[in-house]
C-alpha cells in the first residue's frame, strides 16, 4: 500500500522551510505543511488578506468572524501577530519580505514558468494573489502531484495553460521527486519513497538533469 501522495508531498515540502522564515501557504497541499514541521522549525505564517502570525484552526469557542485566512476559513492569531491592510500585505510580498511562497500548480514549465490560476476554455475570472506571490516571494516552492488525474504530466516543456509568471519557480516537490531550478533549468535532486529515475522520467515532460543528493 502506498502513502497518500498529498501527505508525502507536504511532509517533504516541510523540510524546505527554515526556522524563523516568513512563509505564505497556498490552498490545498501547502496547508498540510504545518502538521509536518518539527517543534524547532518555528516559522511565521503570512496570509495575504492581512495577518502575519497565523495560528492553528480555532476551536468552536475561538471562532471569530473577523479572523480568516486567504481561503476565507477561520483561523487564530498567535502572540506577536500583526494585522495590516491589503496594500501593505502585498508590499510585503512584492517587496521581497516574504521568504517563501508554497503553492500548488496546474503546470510548471521547464524554465520555471508557472500556470496555476486558469484552465483554458474555462473562466479566467479569479486570480487573487497568485501572481503577486510567485513574483514577489524570495523562494517559490511548488507542491503538486506529478500528473493530472487524467495522467498528463504537470512538469512540462512549455505551459499551455495561462501563465501566472515566467521563470518564478525555485523548487518543485511531487510525490516522487524533488526538482530544483538551477541556472534556468530543472535538476532532479531527490527521489522520494521507492520512486526510480525511470518512473520520474515517464511522468515528466520537461527536460531535466540529474544530480541526486544524499
Amino acid at each position, binding site marked *: 500500500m502506498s502513502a497518500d501522495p498529498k501527505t508525502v508531498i507536504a511532509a517533504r515540502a516541510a523540510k524546505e522551510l527554515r526556522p524563523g522564515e516568513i512563509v505564505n501557504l497556498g490552498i490545498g497541499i501547502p496547508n498540510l505543511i504545518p502538521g509536518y514541521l518539527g517543534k524547532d522549525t518555528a516559522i511565521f505564517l503570512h496570509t495575504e*488578506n492581512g495577518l502575519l502570525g497565523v495560528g492553528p484552526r480555532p476551536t468552536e469557542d475561538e471562532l471569530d468572524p473577523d479572523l480568516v485566512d486567504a481561503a476565507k476559513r477561520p483561523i487564530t492569531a498567535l502572540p506577536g501577530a500583526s494585522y495590516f491592510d491589503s496594500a501593505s500585505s502585498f508590499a510585503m*510580498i*512584492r517587496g521581497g519580505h516574504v521568504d517563501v511562497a508554497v503553492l500548488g500548480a496546474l503546470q510548471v514549465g521547464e524554465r520555471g514558468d508557472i500556470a496555476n490560476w*486558469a484552465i483554458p476554455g474555462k473562466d479566467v*475570472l479569479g486570480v487573487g*494573489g497568485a501572481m*503577486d506571490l510567485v513574483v514577489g516571494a524570495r523562494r517559490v516552492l511548488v507542491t503538486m502531484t506529478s500528473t493530472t488525474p487524467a495522467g498528463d504530466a504537470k512538469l512540462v516543456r512549455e505551459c499551455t495553460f495561462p501563465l501566472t509568471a515566467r521563470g518564478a519557480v525555485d523548487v518543485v516537490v511531487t510525490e516522487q521527486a524533488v526538482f530544483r531550478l538551477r541556472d534556468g533549468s530543472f535538476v532532479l535532486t531527490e527521489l522520494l519513497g521507492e520512486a526510480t529515475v525511470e518512473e520520474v522520467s515517464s511522468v515528466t515532460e520537461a527536460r531535466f538533469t540529474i544530480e541526486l543528493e544524499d
Partner: protein
Amino acid sequence: MTASGLVTAEEAVGHVKTGDTVMVGGFGLVGAPLTLIDALADHSDATDLTVVSNNIGEPGKGLGKLLRQGRIRRGISSFFTSNPEAVAAVNAGEIEATLLPQGTFAEAIRAGGAGIAGFFTPVGAGTLLAEGKEERVIDGMPHVLEQPIRADVALVYAARADELGNLWYRHTARNFNPLMATAATITIAEAGEVVTVGELEPESIATPHLYVDHVVLRS
C-alpha cells in the same frame, strides 16, 4: 467629518448616482459594509454601476444582491470566481469584468487615494493580465504600467468609528477598507459602534477622519 456626518444608511446611499463608480470594502464578506450594501439594494435606484471590490459578494449576499438586481454594469476585482453568478453574468455579457492581481488591485486603489498617476509592477508581466498595458524593462525585469483607481463613492466597514469619523479596524476585517476610504470623492463608513471623540487611541486610528464624509451605524 462633522457631527452632522452621522446619518442613516438610507440617507447615505442617496450619494450613489446612476453611472457612478462605487468602491466596496471587504475580503469576501469579511469586513464588507453589509448594512450599506443592503441599503443600496433596497433604498436606491442608482444603476449602471461600476463596482470596485475584491469579490462581487456571494450569491444573493453582499454585492451579490446588487448583481441579481442587474444594477452592476462593470466589475473591477481580483476574484470574481467566489460568486458563480458573477462569473455567469460576465460570460453572458451582462457585466464587463476587469481582472487585476490582488496586490495590483490594492496598490491601484492606494495610488488613487495618494495622488499617484500610475506605477510599474513586475506582477502580471508576460501574462494575459498584461494585455493592452504598457510594458517596460526596468533593472532587467519586465514591468507592467498600472493605472490608479478612484471612485465616486466608497463604502467601507470599520469595527469602530468616533463622532469625527476616525476609524478603527479589527483583525482581518481591515483588508481593503482603509485604502478605499482614501480613494473616493465621498467616503461612507459603516461602523460596528460609534464612540465619542477621544475614546479611540490616536495611535490605533488607521483612517484619520479627513477621509471620511459620513458614518452609518451597522444594523
